[in-house]
């Protein structure tokens, strides 16, 4: 009986097998840990030591994953605190009239705009003007010369000019403080503008415009829209939808505007605004 010892010369397989296995491992290890993983597309070539670490899976970002923190961004510097109210309320319209001399070239005499791209300021709530001026100043809103103008004005100047424009008549209707009128209009309203303004579009997360912008009730810092320039309203909706304008504190206008079609935006703008060049009545009746 022949003993089949595994290291006997008539059995070359242990040497072949161990040799082949070792060769394969050495080649694969050298390629995988020392050579191939040194190179990466669009990155620097690693040193051999770093390549070995990368091969093992030890990289700088190893360890418990932490949630990536987005850079802190605030839509505005304004907070509606008592101090802010007091500062706005202290605005001096007499002094404001002097400051307003800088504005009339674009926004019209006494802030009644004659061009679609410039908003009418006459009758606009002082808090609104004050906030927008500060947003222009801090770079949270940008439009043409307004950043430079904002930076040229002090906080006191802003409060004064806001007080001046808020007291001008012939532009936007006076804020009545009334509740939203009982319009009787519902989601089944056929006219899209009426529907959006008084009932909104819940399927696209659009609340009724009138809840904040009137007619009727207004929210602090929210502009009244009745009597504003049609083109201006439409342009701002587009800017919110595209993210070009981002100074709405709770992002509400960006969310709402994204839910509107271009036709919706136009319809709402036409509903609220007055076309450029149309002579104004003293106040706008509810439609």
């Amino acid at each position: 009986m022949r003993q089949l010892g595994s290291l006997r010369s008539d059995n070359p397989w242990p040497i072949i097998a161990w040799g082949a296995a070792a060769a394969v491992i050495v080649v694969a290890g050298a390629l995988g840990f020392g050579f191939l993983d040194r190179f990466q597309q669009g990155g620097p070539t690693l040193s051999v030591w770093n390549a070995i670490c990368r091969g093992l899976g030890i990289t700088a970002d190893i360890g418990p994953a932490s949630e990536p923190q987005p850079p802190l961004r605030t839509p505005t510097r304004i907070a509606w605190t008592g101090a802010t109210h007091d500062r706005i309320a202290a605005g001096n319209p007499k002094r404001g009239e002097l400051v307003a001399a800088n504005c009339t070239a674009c926004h019209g005499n006494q802030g009644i705009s004659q061009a679609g791209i410039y908003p009418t300021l006459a009758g606009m709530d002082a808090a609104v003007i004050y906030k927008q001026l500060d947003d222009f100043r801090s770079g949270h809103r940008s439009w043409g010369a307004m950043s430079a103008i904002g930076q040229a004005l002090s906080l006191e100047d802003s409060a004064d000019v806001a007080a001046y424009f808020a007291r001008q008549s012939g532009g936007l209707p006076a804020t009545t403080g009334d509740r939203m009128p009982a319009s009787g209009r519902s989601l089944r309203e056929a006219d899209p503008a009426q529907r959006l303004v008084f009932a909104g579009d819940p399927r696209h997360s659009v609340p009724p415009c009138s809840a904040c912008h009137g007619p009727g009730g207004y929210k602090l810092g929210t502009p009244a829209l009745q009597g504003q320039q049609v083109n201006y309203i439409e342009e701002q909706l587009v800017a919110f939808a595209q993210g070009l304008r981002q100074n709405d504190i709770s992002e509400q206008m960006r969310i709402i505007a994204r839910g509107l079609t271009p036709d919706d935006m136009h319809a709402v703008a036409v509903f609220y605004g007055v076309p450029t060049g149309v002579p104004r009545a003293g106040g706008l009746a509810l439609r």
Partner: protein
Amino acid sequence: MKNSDRLLALYHFWVAFAVFLPAVVLGAWQMLMRSPLPAPLDDTNAYYASVTLHGTAMAYVVTTFFAMGLGYAVIETSLGRPVRGGVAAWIGFVVCLVGTVMAVVTVLSGRASVLYTFYPPLLASPWYYFGAFLLIGGSMIWVVLMIYNMSAWKRDNPGQPVPLVMFAITATAILWAWAASGVLIELLFVLIPQALGITTEIDAGLGRTLFTVTLHAIVYFWLMPAYIAFYTLVPQAAGGRLYSDTFGRLTFISFIVFSLPVGLHHIFGDPEIGAGFKFLQSFLTFFVVLPTLLTVFSLCASLEIAGRVRGGRGLLGWIWALPWQEPMVLAVALSLVMLGLGGFGGLINMSYAMNNMIHNTSWVTAHFHLIWGGAVLIMYFAIAYEMWPRITNKPLRSKALARWQLWLWFVGMLVVTIPWHVTGLMGMPRRVAAFDYSDPFVAPMGPWVIISVIGGFILLVSAILLITILVSSQLGERKLSEPLRYALAVNPPRTVPASLNGFALWNCIVLVLMVLAYGYPLGQFLFLKSSVPAYDVTRQAVSTEGK
């Protein structure tokens, strides 16, 4: 064949095929469900339960029971003596069957739709994991019996070469023991403690990495019975001789060595594993081409020998001289076509960079359906047609019907998988219940998916035909058939080196390779803090209060 051994093999085969048919029905329904066509029971939750059942049945139940049955039949027919440890074999059968029933019932109750690869941190009912553990663990009894029977024969026949078929099926058992270690450890130390509420968090990365130990080797465990047929049954059925006995031994040894330290190529997308180990295992994966090429060469050579013996002349004339009416010969030709197509797809999957194109798409599903469902399963059918007369002593009812069945399976599988390859390249994810075919990205995939549905129903017809043939043959009249003979090599081995007559050397090499390839990737989880809370399949976070 001794009566008790015959029953042992027959019971195992029947469990495999009894599970196979409903699993095909589920597969056909799943294809309808994810297609643009209307499907009965249009419920996405049912889809995931069905995928889990289809995968568990096909990957664990059908294959394991088939391999076990084949193992017992091979002991008896190749060693020419009864199975030693018959009682243990029956105990193993019952354990596996109980595990199967537990797993199936739990999936049907909707508490285990985690798919057969388990997908931690998804969590199923513990009964599913217990079932899987019993099924896989129970088959270890078979592994021990195969090794025991082979070594007992070697002790009784010192210096004699172990018959190739016995050597091969024992290699299958050893491969399965290595392969199953990953999933068994995952079940024992990751999934079951969590499912029972012993642990509060689950390390999904560890679970996945452990499963990859199983994930690729299990494929070769499925494949081995087909290769056993290639080497030992096909040349005989074709009327020729095996080209080389040594090729066979080297093939089965290479499968043990190269199917194990390669599983990471299934998780190239996972962040936990370093690039070096992914490359290492990708590199090693390419070596599984070696045994396949050896086999294809040896198989073609054996068939050429048979064809020339039967009077074939000229460069290719021997091909036409082969006995194509034999299901085994037909099956091998169909199998090789599918193996070739699927193999080329597999080269893409295992390549570290190219894998990105098709990772987790229907391309992958197409690949393993073509390889396992096609190339391998069609050989299972042929083996069953070969074994049935020997086990039941009743001849096959109709070889013509068997050929129809094989052809239908072949055509069906191609019609299923070619569209899947295409949709995979288009980016269609796998394991998704419903697609929005009105979406412009998904819409062009619709027609391809509909074509594959047709293939699914061709496969269903073929599966029904298979069961019909086996049942009607078994109910037929008793007739003594000639005993099963395995192909004789052209140069039958008189002695073989010890290393090609046993597995000690190769187990040592596998151990070293596994430590090198998996030691660090698994060990790193001891210091990586990567555990997360688990979610049960009803998508509720598992409460850790009071546990």
